[in-house]
């Protein structure tokens, strides 16, 4: 698991989206974390609540995993850049236009074709 700074993380995330255009998935996970081991956290909590929480963001394409950790001051900028990356790459989804019945029909055919692929079972 590679821990990066927010900007290199976004670059690498962009590369992941490019690599998985023909095949594969990209998983992105957000979680709140204090980045400290449990024992330390409990000590801090019993002493006085000054735990600084960060947002942990992880991304994987099933081959490589990258991650970054955002603090309160980084997250707005990251949020904007992240939204840009998503908008740029998530264009395979169907657009809901009632006029374009042909396009949605093509999309359904592709989905049906993809469903046929993983049903191959090995013969004993």
């Amino acid at each position: 698991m590679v821990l990066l700074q927010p900007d290199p993380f976004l670059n690498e995330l962009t590369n992941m989206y490019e690599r998985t255009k023909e095949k594969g998935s990209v998983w992105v996970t957000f979680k709140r974390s204090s980045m400290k081991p449990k024992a330390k956290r409990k000590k801090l909590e019993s002493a006085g609540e000054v735990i600084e929480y960060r947002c942990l963001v992880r991304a994987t394409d099933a081959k490589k995993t990258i991650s970054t950790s955002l603090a309160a001051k980084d997250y707005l900028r990251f949020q904007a850049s992240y939204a840009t990356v998503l908008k740029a790459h998530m264009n395979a989804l169907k657009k809901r236009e009632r006029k374009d019945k042909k396009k949605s029909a093509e999309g359904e055919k592709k989905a049906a074709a993809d469903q046929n692929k993983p049903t191959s079972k090995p013969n004993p």
Partner: protein
Amino acid sequence: MVYIDSWDDFVERSVQIFRDDPHSTRYVMKYRHCDGKLVLKVTDNRVCVKFKTEQAQDVKKMEKLNNIFFTLMVRGPDVDIAEVTGKEPAEQQVSKKGRGRRQ
């Protein structure tokens, strides 16, 4: 796996799950360009809600949800998210002032 049909329902339940257990709740997004599918999952390892879509219009909704989660996770579960959009302009104004001072 519980798939929710209504987007607003999904958002409400996922924020609820986060507020009930902010430490173990995670938000996962899976995107497959080849299939044109997007699946969102929010779980705290006990309860799980999911939302799947193939519609481009849901990307915008998901971006808003991303903003909500970022805000909740960084600032804390007690933050009033009703105005996530209301907060952003406030932050932007602060940064503009900063730029002015540097000049």
